[in-house]
C-alpha cells in the first residue's frame, strides 16, 4: 500500500500523464479502426456529389430513352434524325405530332453567341482593367459590384427584360415585339459578364510580374504589353473564362423564357436580331408543366434536357482542359 502510493511521488513528471505512453495492441487496433472508419464515412459523404452527377445523368437518360428508342432501330434512327434536323415543333398536334427541335437548338445557340459577342470584349477588357490598370482602392469597390451583378436572381433580370427593356424597345427602337433575340442576348450578356470577368482576371493575375516587366523593359506601352504579351500568355485561362460564361448563358432559363418571345423558328434573315426565338431551356420550362406524364411529349422534353446536359458537360470538360493546361503552363513559367 505504502509502496504503491510512494511510487508516483517519486516520479512527479510521470504522474501527470493520465494515460500510458505506449498503447496496447487492442488500443492500437481500435485507433486504426476508428481512423479508417472515420475516413470511410467522410469519403462516402464526399462521394454524394459523384452520386448526384450520376443520378442526374441516369434519370434524365431514363426519361428520354422511351422517346429515343421506340420501335425498331430504323424507327428510332428516323425519330432522332427528325429531332435533330427538322424545324417542325408541333408536339401538341392530335395526330402525328412532330418533334423537330432544330429551331429550338439553333435558338439556344443563337442567343448564346449573340450574348458572347457582347460579353467577351467587355469582359476581357474589364478583367484587364481590374488586373493591370485599376489602383487597389478602385479594385476593392469594383469587386463587390461584380459580385452583386452575379447575385441578382435570373428571374429578376427576366422581369426587368419584360417590364422595362421590352416596352422601351418597342417604343423607342420601333421593333414589332419587345421580347426578342436582342433583348434576351443583352440580358444574358450581363449575366455572363461576372463569370467571364472573374475567371479571366484570375488568369491575367496569374501571369507573373517578370513577363510584364520584360515587356515594359523593351519599351512596350501598356496596351502593347497586354495585347501582345499578357493576353496571349493567359489565353488558355481566358478561353476557359469564355466557355464558363457560355455555359452560364446556354443554361439560363428564366431570362430567355421571359424575354426571347418563344417562337420556335430560325430567324430569317439570320442576322435579324429583332425576331423572337425559342431556346431549349425555355421549351422545357414552358411545356413540362402542362404535359401529362409518360407521353411522347414528356419524353421529348427530357431528350432536350439530355441534349442540354451533354452540351454543358462537353463545355465543362473543355474548360477544364484549358484550365489544367493554363495551370501547368503558369506553373512551368
Amino acid at each position, binding site marked *: 500500500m505504502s509502496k504503491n502510493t510512494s511510487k508516483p511521488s517519486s516520479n512527479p513528471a510521470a504522474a501527470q500523464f493520465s494515460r500510458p505512453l505506449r498503447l496496447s495492441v487492442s488500443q492500437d487496433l481500435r485507433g486504426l479502426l476508428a481512423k479508417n472508419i472515420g475516413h470511410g464515412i467522410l469519403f462516402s459523404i464526399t462521394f454524394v456529389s459523384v452520386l448526384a452527377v450520376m443520378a442526374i445523368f441516369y434519370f434524365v437518360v431514363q426519361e428520354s430513352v422511351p422517346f429515343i428508342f421506340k420501335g425498331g432501330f430504323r424507327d428510332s434512327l428516323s425519330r432522332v434524325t427528325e429531332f435533330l434536323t427538322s424545324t417542325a415543333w408541333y408536339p401538341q398536334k392530335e395526330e402525328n405530332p412532330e418533334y423537330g427541335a432544330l429551331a429550338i437548338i439553333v435558338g439556344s445557340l443563337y442567343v448564346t453567341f449573340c450574348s458572347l459577342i457582347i460579353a467577351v470584349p467587355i469582359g476581357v*477588357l474589364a478583367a484587364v482593367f481590374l488586373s493591370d490598370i485599376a489602383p487597389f482602392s478602385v479594385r476593392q469597390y469594383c469587386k463587390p459590384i*461584380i459580385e452583386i451583378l452575379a*447575385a*441578382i436572381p*435570373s428571374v*429578376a433580370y427576366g422581369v426587368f427584360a419584360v417590364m422595362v427593356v421590352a416596352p422601351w424597345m418597342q417604343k423607342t427602337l420601333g421593333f414589332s415585339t419587345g421580347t426578342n433575340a436582342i433583348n434576351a442576348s443583352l440580358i444574358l450578356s*450581363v449575366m455572363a459578364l461576372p463569370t467571364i470577368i472573374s475567371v479571366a482576371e484570375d488568369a491575367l493575375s496569374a501571369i507573373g510580374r517578370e513577363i510584364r516587366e520584360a515587356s515594359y523593359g523593351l519599351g512596350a506601352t501598356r496596351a502593347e504589353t497586354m495585347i501582345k504579351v499578357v493576353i496571349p500568355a493567359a489565353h488558355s485561362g481566358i478561353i476557359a473564362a469564355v466557355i464558363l460564361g457560355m455555359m452560364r448563358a446556354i443554361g439560363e432559363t428564366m431570362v430567355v423564357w421571359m424575354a426571347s418571345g418563344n417562337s420556335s423558328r430560325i430567324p430569317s434573315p439570320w442576322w435579324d436580331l429583332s425576331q423572337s426565338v425559342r431556346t431549349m431551356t425555355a421549351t422545357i420550362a414552358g411545356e413540362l408543366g402542362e404535359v401529362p406524364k409518360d407521353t411522347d411529349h414528356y419524353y421529348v422534353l427530357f431528350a432536350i434536357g439530355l441534349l442540354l446536359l451533354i452540351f454543358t*458537360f462537353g463545355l465543362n470538360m473543355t474548360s477544364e482542359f484549358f484550365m489544367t493546361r493554363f495551370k501547368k503552363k503558369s506553373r512551368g513559367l
Partner: protein
Amino acid sequence: MQVRIRQAWNHLFTILSSGSIVLLVAALLLFLIPMLRKGIPAVVFRGTVEFRKMQAELFDRGDTMALQKETEQTWQARQEIYTILDHFSRGIDTEKLTDEAKDLYRDYGQILRYQETPKEQYTELRGRAKEIRDHLLDAFESTDKDEIAAHLDAIEALRDEAAFSGTPVEKMFTMTGDFRKLIATVDLSKRDIFADELEVVKEELYNLFGPRPDEQTPQLAMKRFGATRWDVAEKHLTFLVWQEKWIPSDDGQTLVAKQVRRDDPLEGSFAGTELAPLFSLTEKILKDTMKPRFTLYWQYFIDDSTPGHYFGGVGPEVLGTLLLTLLAMCFSIPLGVISAAYLVEYAGDNLIVKIIRICINTLAGVPSIVYGLFGMAFFVAYITKQPGVLSASMTLALLVLPVIIRASEEAIRAVPQTYREAAMGLGAGKFRSFLTVTLPAAGPGILTGIILSLSRAAGETAPILFAGAAALAPIPDFGGKWWLQETRALSYGCYDITVGDKLAMMVPHKQFGMVMTLIILVLCLNVIAIVIRSRMSKKLRGM
C-alpha cells in the same frame, strides 16, 4: 510620329478598359434604379381612405372609430357628386325609367285585383293605365321632342284625379311631369352618346369611390373598395375628366385623336349639360373625398394577398422562400462542409479524388432547368411522391452543394498551416485539431459561402418550377404534413406575377413590389457576405 500613334493607341486601350467597367456599373444601376423605384411604391405611398377601409376589413388593422368618422366625412363630400350624377342620369338612363313605369303598371294591376274590383271597372281602369304606360314608354323611347310632347300631352288628357288618386298610376303622372322638365334641358339627339359616356363616368366613379353606401356589398373583394392609393385615384380622375375624341385635323382631311375634357365648352361630350359641373367638382374635392395620407405599409412583407395579388402583400411568398432555402441549407451545409473538409484535410491526389473534383465542377455547371428535370424525375417521383416543399428544397440543396463545397474548401485551405502544426504540437490528433482549430478559423469564410448559396437558392426559379412551387398555393399548414404541400416562393411568384397573372397586370406596383422584395433579400444577403469577408481579410492582413 509612330511613337505618338502608339501613345494614342495606349490611351485608347486604357479608356476602353475603364469604360467597360463603367459600362458594368451603368448596367447595374440601369437595372437596380428602375426596379427599386417602381417597387418601392408598393410599400411607401399615399394611402386613401379606401386603403384604410380595406386594411380594416381584410386584415383587422387600424383604428375603427377614427375610420368610421373618416368614412362618414368622405361620404358627405361624395354625396354632392352623386346628387349631380343621379339627377342627370334620370333623363338619360331611360331604361331605368322604363322599368319603373312597367313596375308601376304591374303594381297597379295587382292592387286592382286585391280590391276585387268589379270586372267591367277592372278592365276599364286597367286599359287606361295601360294606355298611360304605353304613352310613357313611347315617350322614353323617342328622340323627337315634338313626338314626346304629343305623348306626354296624351297622358295629361287621361289624367283622372278621382280614379287614380293614391294609386301607382298617380306616380306615373309625377314621372310624366318630371320627364317634361328634364326634356327641356337635354339634347335628345345625343342621348345614345350620352348613355355610353355616362356608363364610362359611372364606372370611373366606381373605380374611385367603390360601391355606394346604399348599394349591396359586392361578392368580389376587389370590387368592395375604390382607389386605395392616391396615384391610382389620380389616374382614375384623369379617365373620368378627360376623353379621347376624334376631331378633323386642320386641313380637314383626316381625323386626329385629341384629349379633351368632358365638360369642355366646345368639344366635351357633356358641355352645357347638368352633368358638366360634376367634373370640376370631383377634381376640386377629390382630396376631401379620398383623404390621402402618407402610408408606410411595412406589413407588405408579411401580409397574405387576396384576391390573387390584388390587395395585401407578399407574406406567403417570403415564408415559402424562407422554408425552401432553410430546409435546403439543412441538407447541403453538413454535406458541403464535410466534403470540403475531406477534400482539403484527408484526400490525397489519387484518381478517385480527381473524379470527385470533376463531378463537383460538373454539378456546378449543370443548367438549373436540368436540376428541375431531375427533381421531378427523382425526388418527386421516388421520394416524396408529390411535389412539395421537401422535394423542392432537396433539389435546391443539390444545386447549391457545389457552391458550398467550393467556398468551404477555399476557406479551409486559407487557414495557415502553422495553426494545424501548433495544434498538433500540443498533442491534438488530426480530427481534433481540425474541429477545434481549423474549423473555427475557417468559420467566417464558410459562413460567407453559406450566405452566398442562401441567396442563390432564394433566387433560383427553374429548379423548383416542377418540384413544389405553385403560384397561389395556400400557406403551408404547420399542423399537418407541411413538407408535402406545394408552396409559393418569391422567385416563382416574380415570374407568375409578371407573365402569368392577368389580375396582377392591373396593379403594377405589386408586380414590381414582389421583385423588389426578392432583390432586396438577395442584396442584403450579399452585402452581409461582403462585409464578413472584408472584415476577415483585414484580420488576416493584421496577422
